């Protein structure tokens, strides 16, 4: 493997954006048949480098060699011609289209002298490819109707359909469930075995250790090191990446349990399609504990959060906050009752990206007397407040008047957490709080959540990431098809067992869902 031939070589590649050097004289080599991981903090320049390779950006300096030939990749078209395919961090799928339409887009099989798209041939081809690589997608389904994991497979099929030999995966596992992740790793192995070479961008050290052959670490646009995975370990990688020591283990005292604060009983809630998404969910959350909700995405977690926070109506059942019913109340009432939410989608729900950080910091509290004087906002108080939060939570922003859009993902998340924690809630619901963040940011956020719990608050953690659940929770509830189907202590279980519980239940119930 060591001496396999280089399929891609990037030399001295420099890419600048206004005010920042995203790639600073980067050297990167991908060898045939390897899985090469790219590791680095948020904003280190990983995606940028790969976008350069895929022709989406033009570098200011440097050369690129593909299969030994010097090439200029002036657009995705050229990259595709060179056999490069990319699965983007944010999928590039046209949602109202079918799987097949997405795959063939841009190089459609034709009939009637090229006039019409030969849909039949397209379907056949997609099915055939899907079988060959064990991807198992339904060529007729609309993107809107399939899971995120399936969408990713469509992205993979898109590259394969175009005959790519070099595949770039940009954080492919950030959005996947544990099952999907292990399935993806199998697929990637499969691809490599069939002669493809893969660049894998990920923040998850575990995955790198599990599947990658070599790893290149970037920090602030520069390559720090490039080395074979075999001779390294996670903490070494983390240190190289952040530039300081990172504790991958979380220090956590035993929980001091208080009285139950949030009690959910027999909750039934309709989902988007009008079917019941929650089918009698029951659980109780006590002060001083972190309750992790584990489960495969789409088993009612989102609906549960929405029902708890007043964004979704309740068909039946009760939600009690400190003994008082809050079922079906408006979001503001719920918020006042002491529930805070770190939403799953920070761009869509967590922030107004086009507002300054300052305004975002009072998104839920602007109307309260400390900011609102007889209907007029007290911007002095608001600024003061924002400055304090930015300080306390280490939100890296040029000023509090900077638009939230300009912040990196990690800092956007920190801003949200600052806001929610500062509301001093009795119950903090954290939905996927670290999705897509680097280890440094994850460490910070995890510490904050534990801190809240230590202060006697109740934390409800909803995450599709088993490691996170296992690490943080004091108690884990497994959710399946809108119900809590089991409860375990993290100390008495492991991810295998948990993963089995999340899916095994399905088997014992004879679930109809296809794999």
């Amino acid at each position: 493997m060591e001496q396999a031939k280089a399929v891609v070589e990037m030399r001295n590649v420099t890419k600048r954006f206004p005010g920042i050097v995203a790639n600073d004289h980067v050297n990167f080599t991908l060898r045939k048949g390897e899985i090469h991981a790219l590791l680095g903090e948020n904003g280190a320049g990983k995606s940028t480098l790969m976008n350069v390779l895929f022709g989406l950006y033009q570098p200011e300096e440097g050369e690129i060699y593909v299969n030994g030939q010097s090439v200029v990749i002036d657009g995705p078209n050229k990259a595709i011609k060179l056999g490069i395919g990319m699965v983007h961090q944010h999928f590039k799928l046209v949602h109202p289209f079918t799987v097949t339409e997405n795959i063939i887009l841009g190089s459609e099989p034709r009939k009637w002298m090229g006039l019409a798209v030969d849909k039949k041939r397209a379907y056949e081809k997609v099915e055939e490819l899907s079988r060959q690589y064990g991807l198992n997608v339904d060529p007729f389904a609309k993107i809107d109707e399939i899971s995120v994991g399936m969408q990713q497979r469509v992205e993979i099929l898109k590259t394969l359909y175009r005959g790519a030999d070099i595949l770039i995966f940009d954080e492919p596992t950030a959005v996947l469930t544990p099952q999907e992740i292990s399935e993806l790793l199998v697929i990637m192995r499969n691809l490599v075995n069939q002669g493809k070479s893969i660049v894998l961008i990920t923040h998850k050290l575990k995955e790198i250790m599990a599947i990658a052959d070599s790893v290149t670490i970037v920090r602030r646009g520069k390559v720090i090191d490039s080395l074979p995975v075999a001779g390294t370990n996670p903490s070494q990688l983390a240190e190289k990446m952040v530039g300081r020591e990172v504790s991958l283990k979380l220090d956590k005292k035993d929980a001091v349990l208080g009285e139950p604060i949030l009690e959910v009983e027999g909750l039934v809630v309709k989902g988007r399609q009008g079917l019941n998404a929650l089918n009698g969910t029951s659980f109780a959350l006590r002060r001083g504990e972190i309750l992790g909700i584990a489960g495969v995405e789409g088993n009612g977690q989102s609906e549960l959060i929405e029902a708890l926070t007043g964004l979704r109506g309740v068909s039946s059942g009760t939600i009690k906050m400190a003994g008082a019913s809050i079922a079906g109340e408006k979001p503001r009432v719920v918020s006042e009752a002491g529930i805070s939410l770190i939403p799953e989608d920070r761009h869509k729900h967590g922030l107004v990206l086009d507002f300054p950080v300052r305004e975002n910091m009072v998104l839920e509290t602007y109307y309260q007397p400390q900011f609102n004087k007889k209907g007029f906002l007290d911007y002095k108080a608001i600024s003061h407040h924002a400055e304090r939060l930015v300080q306390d939570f280490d939100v890296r922003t040029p000023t509090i008047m900077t638009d939230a859009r300009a912040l990196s993902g990690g800092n956007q998340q920190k801003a949200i957490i600052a806001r929610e924690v500062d509301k001093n809630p009795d119950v903090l619901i954290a939905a996927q709080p670290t999705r897509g963040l680097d280890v440094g940011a994850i460490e910070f956020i995890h510490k904050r959540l534990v801190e809240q719990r230590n202060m006697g608050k109740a934390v409800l953690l909803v995450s599709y990431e088993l490691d996170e659940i296992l690490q943080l929770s004091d108690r884990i509830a497994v959710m399946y098809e809108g119900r809590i189907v089991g409860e375990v202590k993290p100390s008495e279980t492991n991810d295998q067992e948990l993963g089995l519980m999340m899916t095994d239940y399905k088997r014992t119930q004879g679930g109809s869902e296809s794999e």
Partner: protein
Amino acid sequence: MNKLIKAFTKESAYVPLIAIVLGLIVGAIIMLIGGYDPILAYRSLLDTVFGNRYDFGETLTAITPILFTGLAVAFAFRTGLFNIGAEGQYIMGMTGATIIGVTVNLPVYIHAPLAVIVGAIFGGVWGMIAGYLKAARGVNEVITTIMLNWIALHLANYLVNRFLLEPGKGRSYMVEDSASVTIGWLSRLMDDARMHWGMFAAVLAVVFFYAYLWRTKQGFELRVVGTNPDAAAYAGINVKRGIVKAMFISGSLAGLAGVFQVLGVFHNQVIAASHTGHGFDGIAVALLGGNNPLGILLGAILFGTLSYGSAGMSFGADVPPEIIRIVIGSVIFFVAAPGIIRWLLKRIPRKKRKEEAV
């Protein structure tokens, strides 16, 4: 829509200035093609507006309604709505003011304010219909406001025809003097130009626009709704109520345009054959002003000056006044596509660059 709001606010001040110059140059070129004298034309235009007190006063009067409709359109923009219905709301505002002005008899200090308020409410309700349909039924406000423009036209004609008509005049009775908002001393000062309180109200509306949206709690809510409705819902803001409220305020502003035309300029309402265009001009003014209160004020002044002055242009230089629409269109075009200006600047060395510093 966000971009629409940002399109202007971010650009530095030189873009609008250069845009105006370029717009005038485009107009001049077209005049030259048509065999007219652009210098004479522009001079006549300026002469008309600034030449005497009467025309200057009338120019201010001409600016008033488009300042209101410009604010109305921009207000909706700011809350994520595209209000093409300022025209209809304007008509309803006229109607409300006329009804009160004609049918009731009250002391001055009650009558005029009442007519103003009722007219504003008429316009507001008309806007609110579109807001409600959007909030409750998800009906695109662009279509409803287009349709409501026509409905307003005919509804107003019906009301005038049926209840307010002065026989044989093709218009309503004149509003009572007690409902008039003209300012006698100012009119006399301006050589009998039709000066009225609407001008001051419009400037107040500019202040209101700013203070409400950027200083108040409700304004904050509306801006969140307009910029990111999902986040608004998460933050506990009632998005639907926000939409309805925003359209009510927007409609009221447009309604006020009509109110003051009735109470300050015409003192009656005619059976109208078609739209006046003030509502559509409001869109242009809002865009010229980048949906910023101050920008809108300047945009309305520019628009009003050019429009009013165009009469003088045809008087003094025989240039068809249509040319002014091309000029205004070009100015908006250059303001909206600053890329073009930058592109041009790159091509024009040194000399022109100095303007950039201004």
